[in-house]
């Protein structure tokens, strides 16, 4: 399995780019696409899913250009859109059977697979509930199930963990790890912890550009030596945030422990080991840093 994005650009209008000169090569495994809202994650994923076409550049699956041959991709694709609707009058198994038929699946094997997926995604107690009546998290799980129906070789999940509770997130992560050994799994999120526990590789996007790509440790080292912690008075926090890039702050009685990113140490601070979260903030929240 090999997916190659070669300098793809998506231009929405004269001066609005969704994605700009984006290149990436992906082999089997889980790639986490991380970026703040509006970074262009969905735009990239939609182009890979053949929902939209790049304005320029090419996307190749095993050497075949999917812009010219979208059905090569569609045949082996599982795609969970960021937001989607369901037909309210259908129950989860009916909806899955419908999507399955659209994907060209059928027969007894489809029924068995739908059953197994419902079981797997904790939906089997709601087999008879019309989708117009289910909760948001349950709808999301139906969405995940639909993406897995056809045993996809390329699985694209746009913000899949939205609406899942912590327990379900764990389950979901384990599920993906089991799936991914010979497949391409691409998932996006704007929450670092979602990606951290699941992804083999991480790509960080900001304002339509790819700003970093590599294994988690490689990305983390980009922020090494630039993360500090300090204790400051509660009242000073707001001002501090204006002047520095703050990753997190923990309040205690009178003071506040602040974790921030800076080129050099500010007094009363101590350097700490960088995490993926720090690197993410470093790469996306600091326009002043030149990113090489």
């Amino acid at each position: 399995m090999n997916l190659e994005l070669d300098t793809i650009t998506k231009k929405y209008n004269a001066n609005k780019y969704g994605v700009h000169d984006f290149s990436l090569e992906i082999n089997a495994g889980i790639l986490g696409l991380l970026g703040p809202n509006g970074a262009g994650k969905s735009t990239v994923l939609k182009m890979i899913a053949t929902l939209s076409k790049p304005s320029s550049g090419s996307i190749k699956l095993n050497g075949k250009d999917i812009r010219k041959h979208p059905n090569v991709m569609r045949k082996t694709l599982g795609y969970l859109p960021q937001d989607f609707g369901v037909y309210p009058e259908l129950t989860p198994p009916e909806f899955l059977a419908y999507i399955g038929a659209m994907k060209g699946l059928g027969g007894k094997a489809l029924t068995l697979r739908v059953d197994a997926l419902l079981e797997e995604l904790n939906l089997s107690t709601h087999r008879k509930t019309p989708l117009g009546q289910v909760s948001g998290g349950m709808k999301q799980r139906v969405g995940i199930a639909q993406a897995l129906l056809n045993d996809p070789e390329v699985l694209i999940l746009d913000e899949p963990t939205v609406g899942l509770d912590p327990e379900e997130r764990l389950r979901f992560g384990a599920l993906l790890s089991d799936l991914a050994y010979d497949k391409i799994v691409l998932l996006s999120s704007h929450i670092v912890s979602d990606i951290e526990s699941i992804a083999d590789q991480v790509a960080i996007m900001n304002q339509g550009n790819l700003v970093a790509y590599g294994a988690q440790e490689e990305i983390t080292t980009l922020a090494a030596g630039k993360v500090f912690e300090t204790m400051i008075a509660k009242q000073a926090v707001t001002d501090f945030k204006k002047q520095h890039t703050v990753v997190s702050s923990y309040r205690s009685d009178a003071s506040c422990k602040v974790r921030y990113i800076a080129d050099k140490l500010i007094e009363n601070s101590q350097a700490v080991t960088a995490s993926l979260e720090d690197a993410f903030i470093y790469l996306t929240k600091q326009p002043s840093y030149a990113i090489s």
Partner: protein
Amino acid sequence: MQFRNPISTGNYIRHIRSYAFLITMAVSIYGAFTFVPTPDASYATLRFGAYTGVYNAVWVSHVSATMLSVFLSLVGFFLVQGSIKKDADLGIGQLMGATVMSNTRYLFSKVCSNFLLLATIAVIAIGMSVVLTVLYSDDPTITLHTFILPYLMITIPSLFCVAVFSIFFEVLFFEQRIVQYILFFGLFLGTLLYTPEGQTNLLSTDMLGVHYITQMLEQQVQTQLPNADTLMNIGFIAAIEEPDAMISFSAIPFSLLFVGSRVLWMLLCCALLIGGSFIFHRFSLQSKYDENEVVVEEDTEESAQFGHSFLQHRAAQMGGLFSLIIIELKLLYKQNSYWQHLAVIAGFIFMFRSSLDIAHTYVLPLLWALQLTKWSGLVTREYTYNNHCFSSTAYLPIQRVFMAKVLAGLAVAIGLALPLLLRYGIAANFEAIINISIGGVAMVSCAVLLGTLTKSGKLFEVLFIVILYANLNQIAFVDYFGAMHATMQHTIMLLVMSVVMMALAIYRKTFDYE
């Protein structure tokens, strides 16, 4: 108060910007053009015996105000209906439900935007009438207030009532679009046909306000020509051999009583709406489900094991069109409510028991009309419910998914006509069978084309209702299912049109998948 304007304007803008509205505008300009036949036209819309009016400002404004009141009310209802549902689908309704805005204010803001939309169309049509008067009248002087007055007195109040009913019926029957359609169609025909002749009352049943104006015009004819046959005729009346005799009409006075009856209609509508605000669901639609939703989550211990048994079940890739059609049919079937099933059964019985002629001319189009939303939603429901991403990323979206929808729609059309087809089969009338089948093809092609163009079922529904109205009035020109002894030429033209429409739809659809 601060809420009213954004909501109405938001709605209004959403419509104005839509592609469907452009088409509506083009149609209303064309409508204005046809409502008052130009002096050289071969038809009439308002005639008293053999007499029509001299083409001048008075005649144009009076006739077009009348025609606009009738036709824009009918078409307009179907155009604006469903705006509460739209809010619910988009989630805007739920946001509103959580604010301090009262039901009454919300509903009135909805009425305002619907009314504004209809009024915009009316204004375009009025503008067109002015242009026509200047172009064709021998006496192109227009006194603006006498020209505008009929529209203000007749058309505008009608449109307001229509805007209210579009909201009121939706409050009453939120989910059942077809019920709303039937109610309005009944109200429309009822107030149009039932109103008794004679003196105008303050309490008039004439919602559309057209009886007064036609009576007053008729009086003028009678005073000018006391002995002539001046039977009034309204609608699109085909050419008669000798040219119509012309009468020069003078502007009719609007009596206080009549103005009062118009105001009373509007007040009545407002009262209805206020009544409706008491039973309005306020988008708490979800709450009625919460009770059923017994959250029996799986045992967490069990969920800790990751068996992934589904990996063992690899679904076979069949790619068959047939299974997809079956599942599309199931989906269409599930959209039916209980009473719609009953209506189909009743329709089938009528089709078997009534005379072949009645079954073909009336029962068939009415039965199709009851399932109208199936075809209008065929290729648009995936946009309404925002899941078109699933079909467009499916394998061979046009050859399989789109075609399956079209064929399922066709199967429903043919299925509903089945009792009639059987009877024709027994009578060995194969021409009728072919005509009905092609009628089904034409209808589905039209639905699919308008749906792919506008991503909404509205336009097709409006068109279908207008055609239905014409069908029930036995106008042969729009008889697409061959009930009025269609000629071979008619049939072939219909077939060609269907093929063209379908080809255009597929052509347009390919762009969706790019």
